[in-house]
């Protein structure tokens, strides 16, 4: 397995990785922290639905659709998206929400429909961790 970021729990990542492997019929070595889901793993959008279902079942969570994009739609009272494109505050917010994506890939003017192209395997790991933390805080 390629090196994981220091703050990542290897056991939890392995469980996330397994969900991808089962949904996409891939071997674990093909599913790395930084793998782009659509381009590198060759997933189609329906595969994302399958991955989400498997993660929900494996971790007993519910992943809201469009959660990341929705969180960046408004930033401190300013629009994060205008005419389907990210504004500067929207891009900054998304960079914060998706630290696993190289920051230069998230920029002002990026079309909102292109955001799923940025998703890495690590994106879903971070979503799982965030939802688990929210659950234990309740």
């Amino acid at each position: 397995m390629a090196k994981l970021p220091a703050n990542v729990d290897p056991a939890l990542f392995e469980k996330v990785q397994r969900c991808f492997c089962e949904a996409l019929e891939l071997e674990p070595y093909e599913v790395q922290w930084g793998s782009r889901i659509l381009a590198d793993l060759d997933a189609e959008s329906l595969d994302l639905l399958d991955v989400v279902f498997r993660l929900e079942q494996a971790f007993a969570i519910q992943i809201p659709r469009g959660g990341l994009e929705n969180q960046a739609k408004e930033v401190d009272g300013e629009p994060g998206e205008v005419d389907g494109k990210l504004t500067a505050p929207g891009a900054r917010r998304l960079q914060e929400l998706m630290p696993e994506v190289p920051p230069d890939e998230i920029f002002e003017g990026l079309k909102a429909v292109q955001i799923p192209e940025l998703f890495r395997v690590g994106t879903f790991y971070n979503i799982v961790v965030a939802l688990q933390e929210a659950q234990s805080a309740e």
Partner: protein
Amino acid sequence: MAGPVAAHAAPSRFGFLVHPLTPLHRRVTGVRRGHWAMLRDGPAGIEAVGLLARLVIPTLMGPAEGFIVGVPDLGAQLAEGQERARVHRERAARIAEAHGAQVIGLGNALAVVAGRGQRLVEDTGLPITTGHAATAWSAVEITQLAAARHGAGPVGVLGFKGAVGDAVAEGLARRGRQVLVEDSGPRVRRRARELGLQAVGQEELLATSRYLVGASTTGPSLAPEALRSGTVLIDLSLPPTLSPGRLPRGVRLYAGETLSYPETIDTTDLWGAAWLAFAGYGKGVIYACLAEPAVLALAGLHEPRVGRRVSTAVVEQTGALLTQAGLRPALRPGRPARQTR
């Protein structure tokens, strides 16, 4: 059309699980189920899952008696709450089983949500089919019919990453057609090489292809004005491949999975006829995804077909069964942005 079909003493039975395609469709489903909250677009629980229609498809292999079982949620709701979708779908499958269905087909989003058909097979052990094989075979044959009418030319397949798109591209290549697919990454390029297809950018695909097969799993993926004059689009996608708008002059659109059946014996009960109309079935035709469980039941092939890929052998076997049953690919006009199934 063939002559009257001799009715068998005990017809083969199949189930077909569906969900409403539009809010209006959902309200009608509510009337059918006597679930009045659905009439006001209100919530509906598992008690709203139930039989919507019975229909009999006449075929040359005998009549196939179908039980259409509906869940109350729209496609978007199924995707939003997949665990709920799983539970409702399993209930629907059990209802079909109780009616004697020997094979059960999955309509539209029910084939893709909640772990796809595979999960339903694991949960129930029932012979479930996604209908992908019949859909792919029909699209290939309809593309060939279109070529016989409009002349030869390269075929671009949209949605090559999906099970149906992959099978359609392979089927057309095997019939000697020049096939182009959209280059979207290394795995697509590798698969295209295996099948002898050309992987190109979308612009080149649209500029080069005389025929387009729309097999994207989510739509719409193209604006109508992106098509050049002379293009023939064979559309399988739901929602349709083209976003709403006028079809450019010189562009032809055909439905990608319509099959005609021998018009002979009893067709439907009242609700069967209503369901066919709401689902967008034209006179004398059914869609391939409905036909697949019917012919599998007729042939006694009571086995699941739910994989992420569909093999050429299975596609060809299904095509042979559809032919034997007298269900023939039909070149029928498609409807831009209003296509329903």
